[in-house]
């Protein structure tokens, strides 16, 4: 038989003003199972909690109901107090007679009746409460970072500096990402590679970081603290251990005219190559699609010239399994290729701006490569078509971004600033040139950002034209840009030598596939979704997975680095304990009744439900049932409502508890 103690709080006068608390205590005292009931001025106060603890011991109470404010306010307080008195915290329930009763009703009679019923309901519920032990799961204190751009590098370095092992996986042959491609960075105009490459070297040299480049995530299994990651290390055709990075193979390779993706296809590279001279690791990779040896079986020059004998044409993809406890996803962004309409995509292309057709219409990243001292032109701004210096240059902002009719409604955030930077770089390099910028409005929030933008106009002589471009066409060697200046209300026509489009930032291709492997959610643009837009911006809803950088949404470098460090801090907080403790509000399967229809598995948003084989002593398969992984389950209970035979039950919200409440009414 239960010995339930009921404590009715006055909350000063907040409750007792409209609820006759003494009468409620007397009424519920008559309910079967209630051994003790009283009212008290402030239950949450120290004396109130002492009263609670003392009564539990004196009266040998088995369950407790505290009728006071919302459980959202003080459930934790009272459960702690109950625990201190030696009862399992989950044998304590709160009845909300303040927010849901005394504060919303004026009539004392009505409020008192309602309060009595609310308390009575919770008394019936608490009778069915079970002792719930805290769930602990072990933590593997190693972390996986996916993506070797600035976000992934920062997160990896921070976690590794914190003393934990990091596995860094990068899809390209080198880490560095987009930041390595940039010329200078706003708002300080410091050279991107000068600040980036030391970090890349740090990653390569860090004893706690294992780097897998030219590798992709094949499979993700497990849950927070206990992931198993299968990594596909693609065949590089060069043995990383043997290669010294001397580069002779690259100079001898007879195939030299392959457009280099790193240089936005402006420069050329051989078939055996590193994407850029500062690549980490400095180990070349053979582009098997363009290599003569792989295409025809002849050549093999690189192998002949390689002193250490590192070139290995027989190399195959290898699968590596790494156990980790946390995952940081930092897969970054790509620029929207406006020329093509992606197949099946709701996003429409911008064929009208001639990108991909007119050679001197380029995107922002291509301009970065032109402006970069290590770029294909050695830092000279030259037209891709004829290598001449453009004297009139037009920048067009918001290409793709903020264009709902084209399918992207968001702002890409960085384009206003980098276009301002481009006008400055242009002005520094082409002194007699003139830059024009077509813009909708300039968005420059950020430290020293607006000052930077104003400088581009006031000191660097960029002409900003508020309005969009209506038409753009080639006329001889010029590109005619027609648009309207809505500030003045006139039509503008500029004969430009080069046009730079600030194209929208999009998640990397394949972001959705990776999200499905990880079991994390993503929005309609494939940006990954954070658990809470304001309060949990670096965590995924899937426990143990964190986000860093532009894979979550357009971001500039400082924001990306901040988020990467924040994700690292989250990982280290997770690793600060040997075992994870979590609230035991999780679902459990009654295996004897489960018929394995897996309706529960179908509705589980967390992938917490697995298929479990039940075998007899001889090892014969008896049946396959559902199994809830308590480390992954978040306790929503959708599985239970879906299960036809209710053989999966959510602890803390069992059918018995709920039906007891309904029947109490």
């Amino acid at each position, binding site marked *: 038989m239960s010995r339930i103690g009921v404590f009715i709080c006055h909350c000063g006068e907040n409750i007792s003003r409209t609820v006759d608390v003494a009468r409620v205590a007397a009424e519920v005292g008559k309910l079967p199972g209630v051994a003790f009931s009283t009212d008290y001025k402030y239950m949450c106060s120290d004396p109130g909690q002492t009263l609670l603890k003392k009564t539990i011991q004196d009266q040998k109470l088995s369950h407790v109901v505290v009728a006071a404010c919302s459980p*959202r306010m003080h459930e934790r307080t009272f459960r702690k107090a109950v625990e201190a008195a030696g009862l399992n915290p989950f044998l304590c329930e709160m009845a909300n007679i303040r927010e*849901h009763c005394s*504060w919303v009703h004026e009539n004392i009679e009505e409020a008192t009746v309602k309060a009595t019923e609310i308390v009575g309901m919770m008394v019936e519920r608490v009778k069915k409460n079970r002792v719930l032990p805290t769930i602990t799961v072990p933590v593997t204190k190693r972390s996986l970072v996916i993506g070797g751009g600035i976000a992934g590098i920062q997160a990896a370095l921070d976690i590794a500096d914190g003393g934990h092992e990091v596995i860094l996986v990068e899809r390209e042959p080198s880490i560095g990402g987009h930041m390595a491609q940039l010329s200078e960075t706003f708002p300080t105009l410091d050279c991107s590679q000068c600040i980036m490459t030391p970090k890349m070297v740090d990653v390569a040299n860090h004893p706690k970081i294992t780097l897998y480049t030219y590798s992709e995530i094949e499979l993700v299994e497990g849950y927070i603290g206990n992931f198993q990651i299968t990594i596909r290390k693609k065949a590089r055709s060069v043995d990383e251990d043997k290669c010294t990075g001397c580069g002779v193979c690259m100079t001898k390779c007879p195939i030299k005219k392959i457009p280099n993706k790193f240089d936005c296809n402006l420069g050329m590279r051989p078939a055996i190559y590193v994407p850029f001279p500062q690549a980490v690791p400095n180990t070349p990779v053979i582009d098997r699609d363009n290599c003569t040896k792989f295409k025809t079986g002849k050549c093999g020059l690189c192998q002949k010239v390689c002193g250490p004998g590192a070139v290995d044409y027989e190399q195959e993809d290898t699968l590596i399994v790494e156990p980790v406890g946390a995952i940081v996803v930092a897969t970054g962004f790509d620029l929207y290729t406006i020329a093509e309409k992606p197949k099946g995509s709701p996003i429409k292309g911008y064929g009208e701006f001639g990108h991909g057709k007119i050679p001197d219409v380029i995107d922002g990243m291509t301009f970065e490569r032109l402006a970069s001292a290590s770029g294909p032109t050695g830092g000279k701004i030259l037209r891709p078509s004829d290598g001449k210096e453009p004297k009139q240059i037009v920048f067009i902002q918001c290409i793709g971004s903020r264009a709902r009719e084209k399918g992207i409604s968001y702002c890409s955030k960085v384009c206003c600033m980098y276009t301002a930077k481009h006008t400055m770089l242009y002005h520094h390099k082409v002194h007699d040139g003139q830059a024009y910028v077509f813009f909708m409005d300039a968005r420059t929030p950020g430290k020293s950002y607006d000052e930077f933008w104003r400088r581009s106009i006031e000191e660097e002589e960029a002409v900003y034209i508020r309005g969009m471009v209506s038409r753009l066409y080639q006329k001889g060697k010029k590109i005619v840009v027609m648009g309207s200046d809505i500030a003045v209300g006139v039509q503008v026509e500029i004969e430009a030598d080069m046009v730079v489009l600030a194209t929208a930032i999009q998640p990397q291709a394949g972001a959705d596939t990776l999200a499905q492997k990880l079991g994390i959610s993503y929005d309609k643009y494939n940006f990954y979704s954070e658990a809470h837009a304001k309060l949990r911006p670096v965590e995924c809803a899937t426990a143990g997975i964190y986000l860093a950088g532009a894979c979550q949404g357009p971001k500039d470098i400082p924001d990306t680095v901040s988020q990467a460090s924040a994700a690292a801090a989250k990982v280290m907080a997770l690793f600060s304990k040997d075992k994870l403790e979590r609230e035991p509000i999780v679902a459990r399967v009654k295996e004897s009744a489960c018929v394995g229809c897996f309706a529960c598995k179908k509705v589980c*948003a*967390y992938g917490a439900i697995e298929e479990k084989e039940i075998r007899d002593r001889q090892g014969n398969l008896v049946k396959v049932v559902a199994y809830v992984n308590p480390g992954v389950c978040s306790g929503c209970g*959708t599985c239970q*409502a879906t299960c036809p035979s209710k053989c999966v039950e959510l602890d803390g919200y069992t059918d018995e508890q*709920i039906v007891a*409440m309904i029947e109490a009414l």
Partner: protein
Amino acid sequence: MHTEKPKNSFEPKIIAFVCTWCTYAGADLAGTSRMQYPSNVRVLKFPCTGRIDPVFILKAFQQGADGVLVSGCHPGDCHYIAGNFHARRRFAAFRKLLEFIGVDLNRLQFSWVSAAEGGKWVEVVTDLTERVRSMGPMVEFKELAMEEQWSGTIDTPELKEAYNQI
């Protein structure tokens, strides 16, 4: 502000099934903002609308509820990613079933009330209470519960004849 209600008039019993993250918090906000609404509603807290089984609604009616409210997070706001989306389908089907059985759907309300919508909570609860009050008691299930008729009663000529032949 409250108009005097005539004594002994029908006061409906309203049971609300709500999720803890949005609607329960919204109801808390109504309290913190000292908004006023009819005292007929009794709130049952669930982690998520996804946990709410249609059987609970049936059970509530059988236990004498005159009106039932199911309320949770707006689409996209679910604390558990998609529980409310599953609930939406489940209840879209279940209300059609109840309607076909002959339950007046004016007694069954579904709503999305966020943690910020204290005012909406008050509006939803007040509207439902007033609507159900004007409809009168939900007699159907109550009558059923009172009926002790044993369904094996031989009350048709065919059954009587068959019985006599045994």
